[in-house]
């Protein structure tokens, strides 16, 4: 009873404000993302791959971790963003990165908005199958539309101009990593604001109990559509950054493996806590880079084992596990 009394006295706005205050750990974390510039300048390409994966995982965390939409096909939006940026450059000669990025994000968001009408209709296994089906559908479509996408050979002739006409993408990846990190940070700020708002609370309500939300007058389908659209746009941004930093697009941006990998990253880090997506992406990408170098065939063995261990023993992901350990010490 004491807990409910206490909850009554706390003003919800004050609670949300307290949640959105920056802690020392967060500031330290973001400062640490600058370390690759000084400590591992030879790994900047990997670092920008990590930032892109983290952005993608962040987009999935918004729908999976906060709204409870289990998806196995989110690579469709990643790929749509990647192809939009690539096609703008290769077919229309539109080489300006920032506007290309925004167009790609907006286009992926628009497709996401259309898809969201399908997504909110189904739950459980049917939901997983619809996301999976839409993902495969997009893959096959891109494969069949070879005149536009380059098909299985990938899209050739993508060139990316200078950012704001000034910063040129260099061979070592200084600009590439700065660019990817900036987009990730901005998207993170946006997501952080979003989940610590009343809208974010409503989403968590949907995740916890879909049936009760209409009972308290919450338009849950609309909420789901909005967050799905935002998430799709963010995934599109991630794909576009990948295209612009590597100057190639292939069908692998749309593949089921990418959809599965991103969920794995999220689960490793921990869902519903934003940083879980980023930490998971770091662990996954760095581990893949190291392990695949030693023994590429068995990389998935370790990932599979890690997944099983995490699900059985760390239901809240590695970050959740660490939080619990830290909590015990107090």
């Amino acid at each position, binding site marked *: 009873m004491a807990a409910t009394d206490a909850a009554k006295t706390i003003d919800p706005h004050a609670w949300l404000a307290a949640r959105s205050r920056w802690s020392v750990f967060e500031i330290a974390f973001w400062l640490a993302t600058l370390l690759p510039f000084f400590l591992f300048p030879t790994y900047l390409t990997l670092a920008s791959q990590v930032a892109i994966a983290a952005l993608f995982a962040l987009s999935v965390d918004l729908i999976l971790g906060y709204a409870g939409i289990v998806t196995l096909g989110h690579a469709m939006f990643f790929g749509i963003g990647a192809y939009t940026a690539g096609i703008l450059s290769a077919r229309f000669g539109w080489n300006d990165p920032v506007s290309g990025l925004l167009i790609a994000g907006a286009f992926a968001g628009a497709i996401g908005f259309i898809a969201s009408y399908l997504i909110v209709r189904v*739950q459980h296994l049917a939901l997983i199958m*619809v996301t999976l089906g839409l993902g495969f559908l997009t893959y096959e479509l891109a494969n069949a539309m070879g005149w536009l996408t380059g098909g299985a050979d990938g899209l050739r002739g993508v060139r990316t101009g200078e950012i704001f006409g000034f910063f040129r993408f260099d061979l070592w990846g200084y600009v590439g990593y700065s660019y990817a990190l900036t987009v990730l940070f901005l998207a993170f700020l946006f997501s952080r604001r979003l989940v610590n708002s009343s809208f974010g609370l409503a989403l968590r309500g949907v995740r916890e109990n879909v049936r009760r939300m209409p009972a308290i007058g919450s338009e849950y389908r609309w909420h789901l559509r909005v967050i799905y659209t935002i998430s799709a746009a963010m995934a599109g941004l991630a794909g576009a950054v990948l295209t612009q930093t590597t100057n190639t697009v292939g069908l692998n941006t749309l593949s089921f493996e990418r959809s599965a990998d991103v969920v794995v990253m999220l689960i490793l880090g921990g869902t519903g806590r934003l940083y879980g997506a980023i930490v998971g992406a770091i662990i996954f990408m760095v581990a893949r880079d190291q392990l695949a170098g030693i023994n590429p065939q068995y990389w*998935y063995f370790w990932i*599979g084992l890690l*997944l*099983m261990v995490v699900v059985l023993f760390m239901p809240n992901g590695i970050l959740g596990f660490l939080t619990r350990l830290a909590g015990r010490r107090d």
Partner: protein
Amino acid sequence: MLSNIAIVLFDGFAFGMLLFVLSVGLSVTLGLMNFINLAHGAFGMLGGYVTVLAMRQFGLPFLLALPAAFLAAALVSILVERTLFRRLYNAGELNQVLFTIGMVFVAAAAATWFFGTVQQPIVLPRWLRGSVEVFGLRLGVYRIFIIAMALAITAVLVFGLERTRLGAQIRAAVDNQRVARGLGLDVEKIFGITFALGSGLAGLGGALAIEIVGLDPSFGFHYLVYVLIVVSVGGLGSITGSFVGAALLGIGDVAGKYFVPEIGSFLIYLILVAILLVRPLGLFGRR
């Protein structure tokens, strides 16, 4: 042209029956426990590799290798269910999906470790090779064999489910688990048996599939998608549903690849999404 259509229908139906054997177990266990077991295809792969081993290393004839595949998959599945899966029955669908996907990854890596990534062919007995002419159509003998096997399995399943004591218990548990428990049924045990039978059938399906679609470490993944389509389109816990879903998918897949090769797979996924949007519980799903 007409004979082409007939051949495509026949090949598609044979492929569909293969998918039916692979997926019917998952449909029943999903309906029973709501446990989303994405490792179902991995049991099929296990059955396939057991067949290859039994025929090559121990010189078993094909017809004896099939029950071996069934038994091996069923035994391993009992082991896995007892030790791992039962911890996850109340863990939420995401955790189930991820855990079992993790198992597929591990199984694929293990298969690569033991057998390499190459296709594993088997040599069929002479009487299953070649084709026969029926009403002017040349039909593959092995495909006729698969259809006959699948129809026999369907008959046994339907009879077992409708007429035996265990079948009645399974139906009761699928319909309403809590009431079944209240009547004194040991739902855990029923589930264990059903799970073993279903995985065994997957193993048998994997063994039968070698000659049609080949066997390599990606089998568990590749056929997982087909199996899930059959289960979700047919509806959970329904043998009729799985049968119809598998036949539709098999015919649609073969016909699509034959008549419109560019967009064949595209059409399959389009139909999948369309069916699920109109009937989220599948064509024959009740809950």
